[in-house]
Structures are given as structure tokens and as C-alpha cells.
């Protein structure tokens, strides 16, 4: 056997590029690298690991001319665990137990106000700046977790795949700006902070909250679930007026 020549390397690339192994590995490496960068930045929320890893991988796909579908065939194993981790959010909620029950009224009130504010201000701002109707409808459910948001978007006449992108961007924005915003308005307790991030920025906000404090994470997870529920129920009704 001779050493690898150009043709052999090309064969290898063709094999690797279409097998799950390479893209699964790339996803994990990109995430680890992004975490490393965040640690180097003293844990700054501006260096959000999800955002950085996504940018790296989008650039990698563009440079190597690989289709998203090919990438996803490998990365889907990570994606699958999202559902499993969502089920796992039950554990921090259960740990909060009775403390949670005592706060039911403030939590629900804050959720409804915050959720309505997010939807109304998103539509108002985008409309004022001349966004298309399709973009507006795709934008409406962007604060809730992706599977719910995509379903709602389809129901009210948006583009589900665009909604998925807007959901991800919302999550990243929430994770980046939450700490600064909450410090600025002087809200100090972990429950309020976590719950606010989960309401406005769903799972990526929850991921950020767990990075900061377990109680914030629990309340963020709770907010994500509840906001998904009320948005799925209310938006299709409200969409008649859009």
C-alpha cells in the first residue's frame, strides 16, 4: 500500500463528509471550544457558547460547501437529546416543590404580562420598520420553545423554518443580554431572574440560567414550559386580528 495521494484523500473526505461521525464530532468540538472561549472571557454572557458554536459551524459548512441536511444527519443525535433533557427539567422543579406552589399567583401574572409584552413589542417594532407580513407572522411565536413555536407559526400562516431561526436568535439574544438587563433594573432574586429569562428566551435562556444558578435554571425551565402552553393556546386566537 502506498501513502495517501490526492485521490485517496478525496475518497476519505467523501466518506467522512457524508457519515454522521464527522458532524457529530464537529458539533461537540465547536461547543467545547466555545466554552473554552467563555471561560477565557471570565464567563461573560456576551461570549455565549451556543451562539459562538453556531457561527463556527455555519462558517464551516459554508466554506466546505456541505448542505445543512448532511450536517444534521450527524448532529441529530445531539438534537434528539433536547427532548430528553426537557423531560429532565422535572427534577429541578420538583426540588422547588412547596416554594413553587406558594408563588403560583405572582409567577402566572408575571408570565402573562411578560409573554404578551414580548409578542406585542416584537410585532410592533418589526411592523414599524417595514417587515413583510410573512416575517411578522413567523416572528409572533419566537419567544417559546422551538417545537411549539413552529407549530403555532404554521397555524397562523408564518414560515415554520423561519420561525425556528428566529427562536434560536431570540434565545441567543436573551442569553447575551439577560444578566446586564436584570442588573440594570436591580432585580436581584434568582427566581425572578430565571423566570424572566425562561419567559423571554426559552431553552437557550434556560441553558444560560443553569450556567449561572440552579434555582434560576429551575424557574427558567418552568417559565419555558408555561409560556409554551399559553402561547400555543392564545396566539392562534389572537392571530385573527393580525
Amino acid at each position, binding site marked *: 500500500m502506498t501513502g495517501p495521494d490526492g485521490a485517496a484523500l478525496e475518497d476519505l473526505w467523501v466518506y467522512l463528509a457524508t457519515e454522521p461521525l464527522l458532524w457529530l464530532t464537529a458539533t461537540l468540538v465547536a461547543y467545547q471550544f466555545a466554552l473554552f472561549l467563555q471561560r477565557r472571557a471570565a464567563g461573560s454572557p456576551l461570549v455565549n457558547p451556543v451562539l459562538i458554536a453556531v457561527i463556527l459551524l455555519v462558517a464551516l459548512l459554508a466554506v466546505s460547501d456541505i448542505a445543512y441536511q448532511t450536517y444534521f444527519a450527524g448532529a441529530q443525535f445531539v*438534537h434528539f437529546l433536547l427532548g430528553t433533557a426537557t*423531560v429532565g427539567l422535572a427534577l429541578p422543579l420538583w426540588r422547588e416543590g412547596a416554594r413553587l406552589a406558594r408563588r403560583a399567583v*405572582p409567577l402566572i401574572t408575571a408570565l402573562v404580562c411578560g409573554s404578551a409584552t414580548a409578542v406585542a*413589542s416584537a*410585532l410592533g417594532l418589526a411592523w414599524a420598520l417595514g417587515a413583510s407580513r410573512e*416575517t411578522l407572522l413567523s416572528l409572533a411565536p419566537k419567544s417559546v420553545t422551538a417545537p411549539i413555536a413552529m407549530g403555532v407559526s404554521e397555524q397562523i400562516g408564518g414560515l415554520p423554518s423561519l420561525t425556528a431561526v428566529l427562536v434560536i*436568535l431570540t434565545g441567543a439574544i436573551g442569553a447575551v443580554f439577560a444578566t446586564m438587563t*436584570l442588573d440594570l433594573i436591580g432585580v436581584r432574586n434568582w427566581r425572578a431572574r430565571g423566570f424572566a429569562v425562561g419567559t423571554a428566551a426559552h431553552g437557550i435562556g434556560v441553558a444560560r440560567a443553569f450556567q449561572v444558578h440552579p434555582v434560576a435554571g429551575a424557574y427558567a425551565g418552568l417559565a419555558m414550559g408555561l409560556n409554551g402552553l399559553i402561547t400555543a393556546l392564545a396566539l392562534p386566537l389572537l392571530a385573527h386580528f393580525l
Partner: protein
Amino acid sequence: MLEAATWLLIFQLAGEIIARLAGLPLPGPVLGMVLLVIALFLRPALAEKLGVLVDGLLANLGLLFIPAGVGVSLHLGLLREEWLPILVALIGSTIAGIVVTALVYDALAPREGSDEEKQR
């Protein structure tokens, strides 16, 4: 570890089945989460078995959003065309949502007791 994974998958599957059969507007995993909270109240011993795996998963929750996030590459054209309204709307509404939720909760919530951890 394996037992924890098995329990999580069972609850995820149960959530998926019930959500679809009942035609609920909820994703299966969210319903699975609700079912697991109920199960934990009925059988607290389950929490110890789940602990290690769940805490590990949730500490790295961000990783799990990356594959879906890379889907941004499918809409780069539209994002380039309408980037201004989209960016302003996303940043403005996300911050507004965080502010309103936090302030309303803070105004209505019971004072944090002495057993509660104080933030820095």
C-alpha cells in the same frame, strides 16, 4: 446512569403518546416533564436515580440547541434582506419581555425568607 436514561425516555415516550392521542397543542417532552414532576411527588426515591444524569444534561443544555441553531444557514438570504426589522424586533422584544416579567414577579412575590440564598 442507564436506569436514569431509561426513565427519562419512558416519560418522554409517554408524553409523546398522550399529547398525540389527545391532540394537545404541547410537544411530547413538555408533557413528559409534567408527568415526571407528578411521578416524583408520588415516588421521591426516583430523584436520586435521576440526579447525576439530569444535572449533567441540564448543565450542558446549550449544546443540544446547536444542531437546530445551525439551521440559520438555510435562511441567510431572508435575514440579509430584512435584517434591520428582525434584529431590532428580536433585541427590543426580548429585553422588554425580560424586564416586564422580572418586575411584575418581583412586585408580587413573597419576600425571600432567611433560608433563601441571597444573590451577590
